[in-house]
């Protein structure tokens, strides 16, 4: 009953008019921040941070957190309509979301992503409410060895994602790994491939690459096909938008995808450093690998959209667990929130929830309300966004280039990254033209550096011995799960062959 009394305390805090107002401002801003490509929640929170210093901490954190999970809703809109991910966590949503829009199902895709986001977000908050202490234990047991194994699980999904032409897929992934080696070598501090440029010390950011590969690459491809000459049309290539609302079977067929995405996303979200991007990419490959019809993926499979969407929203809730229960930030956005906690004079840590229950539970309760508000907001806003696909390509095209450019520049204010984005656009065009896999490139770029870093950390700690993976209980668990997944995959495949 403790949870209920806490939750009621939280609700009584969250439902005060001023806090509700902050909540609505937060979710609106979050949607907005999510929609602008490149401009992610971390930047949005950081920019608003200074104006919250005079505010009551509870109201302020309700607003800033709402920006964080709200952005997970907004980011998908441009993924589906323009093939341009709004932020890194919604890259996976382009894989099947954009094909759905091309088939004239943009409306249902957007509604389903809103529902999946709501479902993921809400499952995430329920899990925080009920099981936060348990998941905090998971966070506590995750050192470099466990993190490396998790990243390896993520890399295995490359096999699933590459699909069709494995040689082209492997080349795409290798380009991604190569790009990931740029920057300061974390272990020795040596600069690698930076050409003495200070801008390259931090390595190649994933955002300009993803925006260029997917957004611009798709656009160039459309120009190549002469879509801008066709006058009418827009994104949906000569196809009429069929119907706005999803059909009942869309819900029935994807209910387990949502649930899997939500639980997977939450579990990955609680691990510092993993986060919503990895969660959504892994959810995509889980959906594809257990699907009976994997060949539909990448061509507009609704499961391939709702799984990752539920996952990235649940992951953003999951990232709140280490923040609230241990004072550990798991992502860039929660790191900014942590800085905010300190400014308000709160000490994030295991004692925070006990010492300031109205603060912690007020925030948790507000997340339930915020997700409801976001669902409503999305359903209202979607008809508006769907109009976008009716805009002729010759008008939409330049607008997309503009959005991509501003979005990339706004992340770090870097001209070099903006050029990088244009270069990635050209690469993306040729990859699409010749059937290479931009998705594999992006996944390798995200996971490659993480794998390298965590393996080297592990081996430094163990002084070169791989035995460390078998000595730690949590890493044994992960090894076990990985083996089980692999075995299940093989069995499934054999079963399918026998059916054929």
């Amino acid at each position, binding site marked *: 009953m403790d949870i209920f009394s806490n939750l009621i305390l939280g609700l009584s805090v969250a439902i005060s008019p001023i806090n509700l107002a902050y909540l609505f401002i937060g979710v609106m801003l979050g949607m907005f921040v999510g929609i602008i490509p490149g401009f992610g929640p971390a930047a949005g929170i950081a920019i608003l941070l200074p104006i919250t210093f005079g505010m009551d901490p509870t109201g302020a954190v309700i607003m800033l957190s709402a920006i964080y999970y709200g952005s997970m809703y907004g980011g998908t809109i441009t993924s589906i309509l323009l093939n341009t991910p709004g932020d890194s966590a919604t890259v996976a949503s382009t894989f099947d979301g954009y094909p759905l829009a091309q088939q004239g199902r943009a409306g249902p895709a957007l509604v389903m992503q809103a529902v999946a986001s709501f479902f993921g977000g809400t499952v995430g908050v329920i899990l925080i409410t009920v099981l936060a202490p348990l998941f905090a234990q998971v966070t506590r047991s995750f050192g470099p060895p466990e993190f490396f194994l998790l990243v390896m699980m993520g890399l295995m999904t490359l096999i699933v994602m590459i699909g069709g032409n494995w040689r082209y897929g492997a080349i795409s992934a290798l380009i991604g790994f190569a790009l990931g080696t740029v920057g300061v070598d*974390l272990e*020795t501090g040596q600069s690698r491939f930076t050409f003495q440029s*200070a801008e390259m*010390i931090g390595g190649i950011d994933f955002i300009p690459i993803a925006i260029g590969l997917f957004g611009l690459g798709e656009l160039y491809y459309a120009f190549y096909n002469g879509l801008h000459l066709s006058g009418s049309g827009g994104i949906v290539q000569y196809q009429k938008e069929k119907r706005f609302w999803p059909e009942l079977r869309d819900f029935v067929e994807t209910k387990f995808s949502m649930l899997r995405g939500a639980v997977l996303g939450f579990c990955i979200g609680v691990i510092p450093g993993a986060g919503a991007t990895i969660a959504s990419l892994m959810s995509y490959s889980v959906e594809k690998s257990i699907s009976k019809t994997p060949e539909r993926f990448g061509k507009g499979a609704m499961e391939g959209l709702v799984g990752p969407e539920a996952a990235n929203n649940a992951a953003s809730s999951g990232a709140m667990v280490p923040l609230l229960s241990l004072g550990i930030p798991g992502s860039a956005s929660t*790191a900014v929130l942590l800085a905010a906690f*300190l400014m308000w004079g709160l000490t994030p840590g295991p004692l925070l929830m006990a010492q300031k229950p109205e603060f912690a539970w007020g925030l948790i309760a507000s997340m339930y309300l915020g997700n409801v508000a976001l669902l409503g907001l999305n359903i209202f806003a979607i008809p508006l966004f769907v109009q976008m696909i009716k805009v002729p390509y010759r008008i939409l095209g330049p607008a997309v280039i503009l959005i991509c450019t501003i979005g990339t520049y706004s992340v*770090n204010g870097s001209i070099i990254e903006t050029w990088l984005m244009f270069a990635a656009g050209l690469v993306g065009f040729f990859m699409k033209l010749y059937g290479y896999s931009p998705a594999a490139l992006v996944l390798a770029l995200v996971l490659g550096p993480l794998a390298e870093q965590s393996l080297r950390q592990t081996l430094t700690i163990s002084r070169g011995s791989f035995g460390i993976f078998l000595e730690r209980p949590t890493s044994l668990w992960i090894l076990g799960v990985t083996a089980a997944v692999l075995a299940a995959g093989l069995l499934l495949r054999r079963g399918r062959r026998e059916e054929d």
Partner: protein
Amino acid sequence: MTSNNFKRNFFLRGGAVLSALLTVAVLASAPASAEDKYPSKRLDWTIAFGPGGGNDIMSRTLISILEKYKLYPENIVAENRPGGSGAKGWGYLFAQKGNPYHISSTSGSFITTPLQANTPWQPTSFTPIALLASDDLVILVNGKSKIKTLREFIDQAKIKPPSIGGIGTVNVDFIVPKMLSERAGFKFDYVSFNKQGELTTALLSSALDASMSNPGEVLGLLQSGDLRALGYSGKKTPAALGNIPTFAEAGYDLGISMPRGLVLPPDVPKEAQDWWIATIKKVVQTPEWKAYIDKQLLTENVLYGEDFRAFLQKTQGAFADILKKSGAIK
């Protein structure tokens, strides 16, 4: 706009530019006494990092104190100019050579970035105002560890080299334990992390034997007993950390820390530097500044003018020595 209009505007603008140039020329040739009234113009405050970080928070705290006590008579405009670990923002300030209406706050990267990359500036290139505080580090072990004191840690380390985690390599997180180990005579394996969250988790999971952290970021875990602090690298241990010794008290005076200070562009008039030194002397007396130091668990460490430049020189020299020895820089 018609073409006629355009022409007129063009000439007007040309005239304006010309007269502005003339004014500048006159001003430049005028004796220094014309600038006695510093400050009389808007101040451009460069923050070389994004909003929300330690550098940003210190700058905005200083600006709000300057405004509250009306210490600066004109407007102050704060501008985040992030990129390249500070290379961009401080590069911008460096380009404002001689202009006393630009200012910037410094942090650790002020020393380390020029060591790593080909920047046109060095920390000593700028006109120093003051070192205000330093970010010092606390050495931590897991709360379940058998090691209770710095002494025990060092004795144990001499028997079995521990793994010590920190953020980055070209960073004080690596340099402080490296100097400590050389003084105390033990070896260790340094494990480098990108983010505080991953580092803290690794220590909590007992993967690491110890870690170096800024105390403010782990205070909650120290209070709950999940982590234990053994020693502090600054001049005086903050009260919130309890009764632990500084490294100097334990017999290892490293004299190294990350400078949080203020600088003007190179070659600004002496009057401007003096004005700022006098002003900062007032700022550090305000209760708002004391509250900032307390909340962030910084060590108050004030040095003015040339003393600050000497401090930068000494710190960078020590960093470069260690990093060259370890092969991180050439």
